[in-house]
Structures are given as structure tokens and as C-alpha cells.
């Protein structure tokens, strides 16, 4: 099933170029009263769709535990190698100290990050989430190497979808005051 594209032969009237000028002017006139397609960007933010992949952040559970357990899967999968994790054992005095490890430091180099979302996809603890921040700026390179504290601050609190600590006396998921879960239902 093929078709030959038609090469039009210009008429004498068209060869004067006048109809083209008139048509061009008419087209521009037609577009003037139409709704503007552009946006006054810094004042007017674009609407982002649900699955938008912005800056990766770390989250805590409602109990204030850092969800990350330093399995280093995100560090491994990260295509541009933007993540560096220093694992450590949890301090002895913390309850359930011997259950999981925790990150001593968790660095994401925002200058290397390509926002592919693989870290969120592979995280087996739902500890890393891509927020919808897209305008990340800083004055120095060091400023844009986000450390654990900064990432946790950006990420906030995320309820546990399976509540893995439930046998340790944690409050139920639907407890009053429990924050709403963001990004729920995104396929991992």
C-alpha cells in the first residue's frame, strides 16, 4: 500500500506570490484572537502530571524512622552513579537496633541525577520518592550534593503501605493525624 505524493504545479496567479502573502496575513490575523498558548513561566507554573519525575528525596515513616535500610540497591542501579550511601548499624540504644541497618550518609548528586526514577522503582522499602520539584538551583557544586538531612527534609513523612513494624506496637495506618500518603498507587 503505497501512495505517490503529489507535486503541485503552481498557477500563474500563485507564481506572483500575492496569494501567499495574503494567506499568510490572514492566518496570522486568525491566530491573534485565539487563546495564548504560552505561559508566563516563573509566575505561572505548568501543571504537572501525576507520574512526573522530579528530584529524588528520602522519606521517614510516621514514627520518625528513616525508611532507608542501606541495601544500596538504588546506588547499584543508578545509571549515572549519582547516589552514594554509607551504611552503618543502628545505635545500640535504639529499640529494634538489630533489625535493620541505616544510612550514615546518603548523598545524591543532583548535578549527576538524570531523574530516570530507577531508584524509586527498585527501592524494596519505599524509602526514596521522586518529588515534583523540577527547578533545582544552587550557587556551588557542593550545595547541590544533597546529603541525608537535606533529602529527608525534602521528602517528609510517608506512611508505610504494608506497615512492617506493626508487631512492634506502632499505631495503625488510619490513626488520626496520620499524614496522607503521597504518590500512592505508582507502580514500582
Amino acid at each position, binding site marked *: *500500500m*503505497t*501512495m*505517490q*505524493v*503529489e*507535486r*503541485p504545479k*503552481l498557477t500563474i496567479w*500563485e*507564481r506572483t*506570490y500575492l496569494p*501567499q502573502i495574503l*494567506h*499568510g496575513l490572514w*492566518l*496570522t490575523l486568525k491566530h491573534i484572537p485565539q487563546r495564548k*498558548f504560552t505561559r508566563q513561566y516563573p509566575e505561572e507554573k505548568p501543571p*504537572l*502530571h*501525576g*507520574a*512526573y*519525575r522530579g528530584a529524588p528525596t528520602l522519606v521517614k515513616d510516621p514514627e520518625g524512622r528513616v525508611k532507608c535500610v542501606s*541495601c544500596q*540497591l538504588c546506588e*547499584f*542501579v543508578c*545509571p549515572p552513579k549519582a547516589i552514594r550511601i554509607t551504611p552503618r548499624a543502628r545505635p545500640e540504644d535504639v529499640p529494634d537496633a538489630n533489625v535493620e541497618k541505616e544510612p550514615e550518609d546518603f548523598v545524591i548528586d543532583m548535578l549527576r541525577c*538524570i*531523574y*530516570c*526514577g*530507577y531508584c524509586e*522503582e*527498585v527501592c*524494596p*522499602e*519505599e524509602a526514596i520518592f*521522586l518529588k515534583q520539584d523540577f527547578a533545582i538551583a544552587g550557587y556551588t557544586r557542593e550545595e547541590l550534593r544533597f546529603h541525608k538531612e537535606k533529602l529527608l527534609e525534602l521528602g517528609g513523612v510517608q506512611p508505610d*503501605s*504494608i506497615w*512492617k513494624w506493626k508487631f512492634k506496637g506502632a499505631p495503625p495506618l488510619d490513626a488520626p493525624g496520620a499524614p496522607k500518603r503521597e504518590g500512592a498507587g*505508582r*507502580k*514500582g
Partner: protein
Amino acid sequence: MTTKHEMELIDSAARAQQVMEEELAGEKMVINMGPQHPSTHGVLRVVLELDGEEIVNAWPDVGYLHRGDEKIAENMTYTQFIPYTDRLDYLAPLANNVTYAYAVEKLLGMDVPPRCKYIRVICAELARISSHLLGLGSFGMDVGAMTVFLYTFREREKIYDMAECISGARFTTSYTRIGGLAHDMPPEFVPMLRKFLKEFPATIDEVDKLLTRNRIFCERARGIGMLTKADAIDLGVTGPCLRGSGVDWDIRKAHPYSSYEDFEFEVPLGSVGDSYDRYLVRMEEMRQSVRILQQAIDNLPDGPVNSPDAKILLPDKEAVLTKMEELIHHFINVTEGINAPPGEVYFSAENPKGELGFYIVSKGGGTPHRLKIRSPSFVNLQALPIMAKGHMMSDMVTILASLDFVMGECDR
């Protein structure tokens, strides 16, 4: 009957250097076009040998955007390479994702569910429209018709909104996975696409009216950059450039993949093989893409988008969080990659610019031993010396625009 050409295609960069250094006899002059010329769409350097304003010879010099993607692929798992395919032809990242996924699936000898195939068709066709819109817009702008560029970019913006909706990013989509997709299309995507399909033909007609019968455009494009049928085949030119020369070759028809056999569409062919024909072919391809998209959205099958094999795709997140077996699969799959059988495969698909092929050599295990990317822009650029010879220096801009290449893919 075969025709003979004197072509200096071997190491054109070295030849260009030689020409620059040689003393030229008589009136001839050598000048550089690029790597920062606005009409070279990136970083292509063309060394032109001119006799007055006439081009005697042209040597394209590529490689300014070389990032070593093929070598990078050898050092990571098949899944990890998907974001790198976004950056090949960065005007059609969705189509690259689709082609790469099919290439690896061919190596694994697996099939994907019909819904996944249809969504991949939608992705590939949207990418085709967006790439052609940019190609035509910049073609118009290069020959002096600025308005077209603005109208085509408005439509492109809508396509990028849709790409963001479906994949989560405008350009760096990374939407496909080996054996499926990152996630099913969100429910708000279908109305968005329907709205676009309703509005878009009007824009094609606007562009058509502005350019096709425009005397200035016709005179700048007609008879410029002739590429005969035989030359196009000899040089391995693919895509709209090949079909503009009148060769009936479209991989979607010749070797249907991704259920393209279910769709009704025509393959537009040019008759003469000049820049104008390539322009007409691209215009018609956009119309045909709209037809394909309409059929895909009307007949979109239900069902899963991912193949159920946990050794290839990551298991469901809910199961990973609660079950031991899935957690083990998850860790093995991420750290070791997909265990591909040893072997060699070549898969190519009809991308907006032409035939994009991936040649994968696997020695087993999670990473490719060698991954060769057959990029259409690189091969199509070979035709530049033949097309440019005998034309004026200012026609070079038209020829480059009508070839519609992307240096990200050419140099990879």
C-alpha cells in the same frame, strides 16, 4: 545499469583536514560550515570546497557529540541502558525506547502482551509526529519561513505534554522496560490524545498552505539535493529520505513489528528525490501517523502491559514488600540484570529519521558483550556529498534541513 560515483567517504574528517592544508589551485576556496552553524542542527562540521558560490565537494565531519554510548552499554545491565536510548535521537526518545526494548526482547526470545504493543505503537507514532514537526519547522525556518516553526512548535508542545503524562518526563522518557512498560498509560492520557488527534490535522493543513504552494519555498527546495533511487539504495539511506527518492521501503510494512500489521496506513513515496519530495513525504507521514494513532486508540486491547516473567521484569512492588520469593527475584533482577542467552541479534525499527537498529552480541548474563547502534542519521549523512555537489552554497542549508538528522544519534 549501475552508475559509478567518485565518492570520498572513507575518513572524510582526515580528507577535510588534507584539503584545508593543501594549496588550492585557481579559484577554489575551502570553508568550514559548522560545527556551530545554526542550520547544522547540532554540531556537524561540513568542509566545503567552493568554486565561487558553487559547491565542488563537501565532506561531513562527524563526532563532535560522541559520548561513547556503545561502550557505556557494555558496562551496565540491559535495563540500565534504557535512559541512554533517550539521548540517541533526542527528538524522538519514545521511539528509541520502543526499538531498544524490542531488540532486547528479540534476544531473549520473548513476546509482550498485545496492550503493550499497542501502547508502544502510540509512543512510536507520537514520536514520529513530533520529530517531523521539528524537521519541517526548522526546514521552513532555514529557508526563511519563520511562521511555520512557531506553529509546529506549538503542536510539539502538546506532544511533550502527552509524553510527560504517559512517562513522567518530557524528553527523557525512559518509558519502556524489557518485557513491558514502566507503567500502564494513565487514564487521563486517552482523552488528551483524542483531543490532540482532533486538533492536529488543522495544523498540518496550515503548514501545508503556508509552504507547499509557496513560490519562494518551492524554488528553494525543488531540484535541490537530488538523490536518485539507485544512489539512495547504494548509500543505505533510510526513512523519509529514502522514500522521498521513490523507494518503497518502510520497515513497518516490510517486517512488521509491534503489531503494525494490524494497522491500515499508506507509505508515501516521492517521485523525483529532491528536497521538496522529502518535505512532501514527511507531511504525508504525519497524516498517516494520525491515522495509525486513531486506529490504535480505538482498538486498544485490555489486559496487562507487562509480561509476567519475574526473571525479566521487576515483580509487583506490593509483593516485594511482603513476600520473600519476590524480594529475592527483585534483588537478583536489579543487581545481576536479565540473564540473556548467548547469541547475536539485530533488530531494527522504522524510527522518524529512518532505520534505527540495535545489534546485540550477548555472551550470556546481564550485560551485552557488544551493542552496536545503527543510527539512521549517521548513514543518511553519507549522501550529503552527492546531494550537495553542483549546488550553491546557500542550498546547503536546504539540503541539511531536508536530510533532517540529529547529531545526538549520529555521533552517539
